[in-house]
């Protein structure tokens, strides 16, 4: 039980990785699994949280911030990523700038069948768009977030970090 608790992906790990990689803005729609992460981000004086109304806005808002010399991150759920397809195409892939998108993997499960279609279509969607992704399930995977930033900077393309801990969430 103690080992399990130690392994859980901590919100502080995400925030630390953001700081390490010079993130200035997090463009996000909060969901029920990430309320503690949201509050923690709001507490950081070096970080500006940009709430949006629908996930399709995220890539374009990030593009504008990137043109301004800022370092945005998109933090959304896989359902919102699926909704954002044309924005990701036109405003992230075609625009060609480094962008890390942290995506909650709703419906993902380590064991058993994946029954949620949001999870079923997540990785095929990313493969269809040619977007590389890194899977983060627990705290020991946290350094993969920096790897994603390195790849985004090197390729000037979006790179996704899939958070496989979605159903545990960041609630208190």
């Amino acid at each position, binding site marked *: 039980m103690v080992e399990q608790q130690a392994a859980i992906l901590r919100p502080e790990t995400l925030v630390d990785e953001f700081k390490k990689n010079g993130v200035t803005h997090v463009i996000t729609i909060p969901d029920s699994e990430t309320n503690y992460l949201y509050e923690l981000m709001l507490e950081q004086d070096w970080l500006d949280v940009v709430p949006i109304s*629908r996930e399709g*806005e995220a890539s*374009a808002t990030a*593009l504008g911030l*990137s*043109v301004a010399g800022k370092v945005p991150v998109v933090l959304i759920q896989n359902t919102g990523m699926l909704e954002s397809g044309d*924005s990701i195409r036109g405003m992230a892939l075609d625009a060609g700038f480094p962008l890390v998108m942290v995506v909650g993997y709703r419906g993902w499960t380590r064991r058993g069948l994946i029954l949620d279609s949001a999870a079923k279509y997540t990785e095929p969607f990313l493969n269809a768009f040619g977007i590389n992704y890194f899977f983060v399930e627990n705290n020991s995977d946290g350094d993969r977030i920096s790897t994603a930033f390195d790849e985004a900077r090197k390729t000037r393309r979006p790179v996704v970090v899939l958070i496989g801990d979605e159903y545990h969430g960041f609630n208190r």
Partner: protein
Amino acid sequence: MIDAMDVFRAFEPHRGKAIVTSSGTSGRRWQEVSKAPSRDVSFGSTMGQTTSAAFGLALGLPDEKVVLFDSEGALLMNLGVLASIAGKKPKNFVHFLLDNEVYATTGGQPVPNSTGIDYAGVAKAVGYASAHHFDDLEEFATSVESIMKEEGPVFISIKILPEIQNMPVGLRTRTPTRSRPETIADLREELGITG
């Protein structure tokens, strides 16, 4: 309704050093009037997302005035962005809406409820600092100077004449003349932004 080119001509003397971007068929003609192309930026036209890109730019450059000439067809595809903008209250953001009531680029079919939407009313209700509406050129021309001095986010809807496109896309004149990457690179150089 006003000719979009007259809107641009009335606005241009009051631009100052503002960064300008646009969407829609009429918005592309801003480049014919602009006297500071290195401060004009194109974000492409992805289902209403130019508005979000302009919003991001305004957030990232709080010391620069950012002006968007939006179009109602694009805005209707991304109407929630008004709340996103109102929530962050960028003081440096001036949001013009050129409302020709149609999808001009696809032959002039009307947008939903084309004549019945009070866009300025929507913007004000959603939380913009101020909102204005014009369908008379003289009234607009005498107001634009003071509007440009207002604290944002400011919203200005203007009824304009449609410039309907019926030629096949491949036969149309390409606008803007500079590509998106070129406009972005020029703007970043103008502002001294590296990285």
